[in-house]
């Protein structure tokens, strides 16, 4: 088996995540799909690290993981704040900024 199969898998997972972001309405599930996309890119980074024989890809994947954790913390805090005022976690409802 060629290690490039991992990259194909990463592409598929990224596509699934992107489709989920477009199709789901619940903000928390949208966040999970964003996480899935970040993880798919991590998988690609780690497989490229193996293909090229250096560890830079793994270090970048590590950084992506930290950024994803920070993003989840702030994102979920925003969701909780919106839920407190609007009683809903649907991304259709917060339309206060709409003209």
């Amino acid at each position, binding site marked *: *088996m*060629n*290690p*490039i*199969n*991992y*990259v*194909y*898998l990463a*592409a*598929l*997972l990224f*596509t*699934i*995540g*992107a*489709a989920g972001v*477009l*199709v*789901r*309405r*619940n903000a*928390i*599930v949208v966040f*999970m*799909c964003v*996480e*899935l996309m970040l*993880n798919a890119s991590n*998988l690609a980074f*780690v*497989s490229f*690290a*193996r*293909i*090229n*024989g*250096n*560890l*830079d890809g793994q*270090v970048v*994947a*590590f*950084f992506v*993981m*930290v*950024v*994803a*954790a920070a*993003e*989840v*913390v*702030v994102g*979920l*805090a925003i*969701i*909780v*704040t919106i*839920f407190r005022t609007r009683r809903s*976690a649907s991304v259709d409802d917060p339309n206060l900024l709409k003209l």
Partner: protein
Amino acid sequence: MSAMLLTASTSTGEAVAFWVLAPIALVAGLMIVLSRKAVHSALWMALTMIVLAVFYIMLGGVFLGVVQVVVYTGAVMMLFLFVLMLVGVDASDSFVETLRAQRAITVLLALGFGGLVIAGIGRVTFPDAVGVGAANAAAGGHVQALAELIFTRYVFPFEVISVLLITAAVGAMVLTHRERLVPRKTQRELSQDRIRGGHPTPRTTPGVYARHNAVDTPALLPDGSPAAVSVPEQLSRRGSSRAQASGESDAAIEAGDS
């Protein structure tokens, strides 16, 4: 293990593991998108994360695999579940399309995007896989090699990321902080309220003599009527009390349960 990582091509064991785990990852990924309930999505997400951690370890990123399990399935998914519990577990997504043909267009876009990316990867000629064994051996170990990279070449991004983490933590605290609008009641005021409020004894606990002992089920009075006062005030204000939800009589509550 290190000998396997040194080789360019993969072993049979790895191929078997990949072809078993890759479909699991794909199905779990699809189920995140397709599950109606957010909790199910979260559990499928946890499965995907664990499978990806195994992939990282298979690819020679042992440290990264462990970090994946600790950070993702440990911290991030638990955070997701906490927020789900806060927001309401039973809230399932409405599947009514607010934008016309949104789902069809999404499927089309996803197929187009996936096709483009996979065709792009297919056209690239990659060199033979080297494996990270040599890079590990040069630094005297896998974790040592990673540490050397993080603290030399990537030390500036590393510091920037630490600033980002602190900012995120402070931001989350600021966002979820709630100002107290009325001053906190002292113990004296609380006891005065209790004595003068007409109900000096503790209130009936919810669920006494009722069919359930859940907090949203009001206790039954001797004449069989539900005692609305036994349900916590927050629940009845939110409309989650069973007495409000399904009529006043026990029969109605019973019917609501089944």
